[in-house]
């Protein structure tokens, strides 16, 4: 009988998961912070991404590209959080009271000095922000397409719109000064 119960969990020992964390945490967390509405949401997403990585490994679903996999899970988690947040915001408006929520860019950056691109980026739709940040973090076009779950052509258009919007916003800000 060739069927075997095989433990495909090599690489998820505490030491190995720590190593993975060390390799990717900085880029992933920065990506999440710039994509998330607030820092807490970014932390939740990053925490979920590493937890899911362990679960996937224990279930025998070893990702081929761990870095891209983490970015995909983190982005999807943030997208779900954004949806939940929109629903919550609608309910808050119904009861006529604004919650004590910082504007995204303020929450994300805290006291850090922001440049024009950051300001414009914060106003873009979620997927455009996501695509732009992935590109900034060095993912190739096809990798971005796979992370977003889109075709190459759709990803090219998404990135073009994001860059065009940033360019337009930055030029306006420069003209205003």
């Amino acid at each position, binding site marked *: *009988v*060739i*069927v*075997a*119960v*095989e*433990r*495909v*969990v090599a690489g*998820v*020992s*505490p030491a190995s*998961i*720590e190593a993975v*964390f060390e390799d990717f*945490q*900085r*880029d*992933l*967390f*920065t990506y999440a*912070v*710039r994509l998330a509405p607030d820092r807490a949401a970014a*932390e939740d997403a*990053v*925490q979920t991404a*590493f*937890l899911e*990585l*362990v*679960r996937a490994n*224990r*279930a*025998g679903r070893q990702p081929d590209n761990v870095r891209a996999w983490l970015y995909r899970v983190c982005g999807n988690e943030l997208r779900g959080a954004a949806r939940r947040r929109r629903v919550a915001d609608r309910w808050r408006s119904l009861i006529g009271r604004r919650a004590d929520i910082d504007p995204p860019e303020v929450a994300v950056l805290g006291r*850090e000095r922001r*440049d024009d*691109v*950051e300001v414009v*980026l914060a106003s873009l739709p979620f997927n455009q922000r996501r695509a*732009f*940040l992935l*590109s*900034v973090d060095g993912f*190739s*076009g*096809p990798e*971005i397409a796979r992370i977003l779950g889109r075709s*190459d052509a759709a*990803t*090219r*258009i998404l*990135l*073009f719109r994001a*860059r*065009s919007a*940033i*360019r337009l916003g*930055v*030029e306006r800000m420069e003209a205003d000064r």
Partner: protein
Amino acid sequence: VTRHDTIRALASAELDFELSATDRTEVTNHLADCSACRRFREGIGRDAENARQWPRWDAPRSLLAPAMVAATAPRSLFRDRLVLRPGSAFVVVLLILAALIGAALAVGAWRLLDRSLVLPTGDWIAYSSEGRLLLVRPDGMGRVDLATGRTNRMTEPVWSPDGQHLALIVDHDVAVLDADGRLAKLTNDDVREVDPAWSPDGAWLAFGTDLGTIEIVRAGGMDRRVLIDGSDGPLARWPSWSADGQVIAFLGSDRTDSPDGTRFTSLREVRVDGTLMGPGFYLQRGGARPSWRGDGRLVFDGCMCKGGPHSVVWSILESALVAAPPRSVSVNGLGPDGGDPPTTPAFDSITSWSLDAVGSWVGYRSPSWSPDGSRMAAIRAPSFELVVIAPDGTVRLVADAPFAVLATGGPASPAAAEAGGEVSSIAPPVWAPDGQRVAYQVNRGFAIADVDGGRAVVVHAELVDGLDWRPTQR
């Protein structure tokens, strides 16, 4: 969409994707001439570079805690994955097949325990109707459906001589049903078996096939032997054992004695060792199952057709062990009205004998000996009356075609007989063990008549394709 938009989209794509040489050339050429697009290209590159210089933050190490807990948690066996390596699909298919076979065996075992098949004791007539196997008391009461819950087609039930078993055809195979309800197929092939017949000692079964063979097999299913290999033609029906179990008479094919050298239907005999006995007894049209008497006399019917298209011969031969059955049959003429012959010979005193109803389609069909061999029952065409013939040749009407089913279905017509041999398909009457009653098939169903009292009762009014009266149980 302007050309500038197209070029800018390509310029954007160039940062992430491989552009074709044509697109690259187009972008380069356009940027050389268009300062606005050149500015866009430089701008998006600058924006990206600017973004790469943004501060980066370390994730709090506490974010790793849930993953560390998960990584060190005890492993549940059920969370491990079954890994299917190359070839595993084949193994999985085997496992599924094994499961299916196991389930089938379980169902089969359950079937064996199906007590509805247990044969009740007592006086029963077994018959088959439209694929169902049934028992009925001779008075028409106590009907039992032995095929309840089964999808098999069951036909031609025949009681063993000791009355303890039923041989039958199940889905074209010969099978035996014992008193405990166990149904065992003795054959299992693509050939269509027909006409099962028990040997007098109940140890063997003879049967015909659609390949024209006559075969025997032990009642336990072993030692199957082909006695007639079918090379003489596709016809081999109604094997019937002699009383000593040494000879089987059957309706087969022969060409040796044919008037024109072609194959013809004949009554033939074969020893159980496979030795074919003598030339056949020529019949131009087939008859019913031959009936043996204890002393070796064989009665059968067939059509010699020598006097006309509907000439019927009905013969009694001496012992089949006589090497060559008599060929020269005496012919008794009929009355001018086509009725019964004025006299019939006393069959105990003759070696061969026939009635010939030239051109009138009157004849005696499907004769069968009573259990003690003292008389014969037969069906008299064309109105399907049941008659009994005494040893002195006296023909006595037992049942004057009283069957309602026959009246509604209509008797077989001479034209139908000529076209399809319907006359030849009349099953012989079946005697009760006491020799006082006879069961006989009618057009649709069967009836039981008191031989001496002349009373007939229709017991089953559906199409019947096999019928046998249980012998006295031993």
